[in-house]
């Protein structure tokens, strides 16, 4: 699996090295590099159209980056180059993402939606499911209770049998996060987790994200427009503009960084 000759340093989880991607003539991401340490919460910020979601898509292999490598220290503590992997195999390495617009199955129960996140953990195939072999039932039972546990952690286990469709946006976001947690990840990528939430919900999410890091011992990479939220929750922040790296530092330093300020103020002048 690990064709990469480079190994990540100890304590390092993800290293995005020099990735670029262009669509037609537009360079959406331009020689971007940054890294995430273990148990670290990193925010990716930038003005609209800075290419934040594109960076996510390059890391999770929805897009193939034109150049560069994305090294990741996977579940078995081996360094893998994610660029060598198919998009559906990324979750097996311990990296899982949510989506900006949640993308749940409306006509499945909340519990079943969470179980979709456990898809790659199942070992039994379709035939043992059809025959309902003992092992298959046991496996299903096992992940069902695991899903309930995750939902309990998220504080929405009382809703588990309701359909996901029609739930308020805050709940949907929580289901989205719950379903990443069930896959035993090492790194979760959250695409605008606070978008569409009110102040109370945002505050709650803030606590939740810190809790997730502490309880599950995982790192989190997130894109968010709510600056207050990002400053509160993140250990370090990476700022980009037009696909280019601006700075990566603690929230305090990022706030006072003249280059970052210019990028944001420049946008205001448009």
């Amino acid at each position, binding site marked *: 699996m690990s064709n990469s000759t480079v190994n990540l340093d100890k304590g390092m989880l993800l290293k995005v090295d020099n990735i670029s991607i262009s669509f037609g003539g537009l360079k959406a991401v331009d020689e971007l590099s940054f890294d995430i340490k273990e148990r670290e919460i990193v925010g990716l910020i930038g003005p609209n159209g800075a290419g934040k979601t594109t960076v996510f898509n390059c890391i*999770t292999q*929805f897009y193939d980056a034109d150049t560069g490598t994305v090294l990741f220290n996977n579940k078995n503590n081996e360094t893998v180059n994610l660029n060598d992997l198919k*998009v*559906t*195999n*990324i*979750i*097996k390495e311990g990296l*899982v*993402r949510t*989506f900006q617009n949640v*993308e*749940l*199955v*409306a*006509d*499945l129960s909340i519990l*079943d939606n969470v*179980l*979709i*996140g*456990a*898809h*790659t953990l*199942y070992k*039994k195939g*379709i035939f043992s*499911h*059809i*025959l*309902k072999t003992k092992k*298959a039932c046991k496996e*299903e039972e096992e992940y069902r209770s695991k899903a309930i546990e995750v939902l309990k952690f998220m504080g929405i286990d009382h809703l588990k049998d309701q359909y996901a469709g029609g739930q308020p946006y805050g709940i949907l976001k929580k289901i989205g996060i719950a*379903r990443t947690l069930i*896959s035993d990840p090492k790194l979760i990528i959250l695409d605008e987790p606070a978008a569409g939430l009110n102040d109370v919900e945002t505050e709650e999410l803030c606590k939740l994200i810190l809790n997730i890091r502490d309880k599950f011992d995982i790192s989190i990479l997130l894109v968010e427009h709510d600056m207050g939220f990002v400053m509160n929750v993140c250990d370090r922040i990476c700022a980009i503009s037009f696909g280019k790296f601006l700075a990566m530092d603690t929230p305090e330093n990022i706030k006072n960084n003249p280059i970052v300020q210019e990028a944001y103020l420049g946008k205001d002048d448009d």
Partner: protein
Amino acid sequence: MEGKKRKSRLIGQIKNKFSKNIYYRFTAFGVLLSLIPLLSTVGIMKVSTVSLFAYIIIFTIVAMGLNILIGYSGLISLGTAGFVGFGAYGVVYFYGHGIPYEFAALITLLIAALIGIFIGLFSLKVDGVYLAIATLAVGEIFSQVFKKVTWFTNAYGGVHFKFPKLFGVLQLQKSTMFIFLVVMMVLFMFIMYNIVHSRTGRALMAMSRSDSSAQAMGVSVPRYRLIAFIIATLFATTGGILYASFFRYVQPLDWNLMLTLLVLAMVVVGGVKSIIGTFLGVFVIYGVPTLWLEDLFAGTEGIAYIFSGVLIIIVVMFYPNGAVNVFQDFKKLYKKYKNGELKIKVKKGQKANE
């Protein structure tokens, strides 16, 4: 007193099992259906009605396959009739070459699955309307093969078959063959239920609602599209094999687009994603016109089609999730009646008290 208590407890237990365990319900439904040949022997039911129910049972299996494809994986196939026909011709052909019934059926299913994979590969490239057209072409190819490839289908002459002997010992007659059909239908209901309530069913639904979200969760879209098509194909082909086994005559003109569209209508009218709804759909689309309307409007050709057309419009308007929801409305009505919220019914109740 003691006996009464025990009896009520027993009833309670049975009731509990039925409400909790869907397998009991399917089985009970199957047992009820398998009484139909008995009704005809006693003379309550016409012999032709037994055949009608056989047809309904067979097409319930076919429609369940399409239901998985449409309802769960969000794909479409207009080649259903072709596969039913292939199943019917296939089992006759292989049986005619000296292969035992069970193996002839297995070989037919295997070939059909391979063709299913082939269509599944289409679906990796095209979506929606284009997929419908591609599968339509496959159905049309089948239809032409049935008419032209004489060594396989005997062209317009059709092929004859006989009631199979199961495992070389159990010679089926008309009534036992009917029970065999029911057993198969209940079996396929179990299969469908188990598939859709497993990891596979969830993966199919995740894939149909959002490709990218499914991929992020590790669901391989090509793989599950293939699986969906294989399942639908196998259900349809099984239907065909059973058709040949029960009706013992297969002719080429039956397997046309009209039949495919009727199966589609059965799924939509009965209830997408519902197993019992599928049976209901088949019964309403095929059973009702044949059972009652054709006698009522004797001599009016195509009354069945008019009926199905009107019905589809009504169902889509009032029960967009399928006619199976009618039962739930009845339940609600019954609850209202029990709570005395229904005025007309309450008056009736008062009269009874007087």
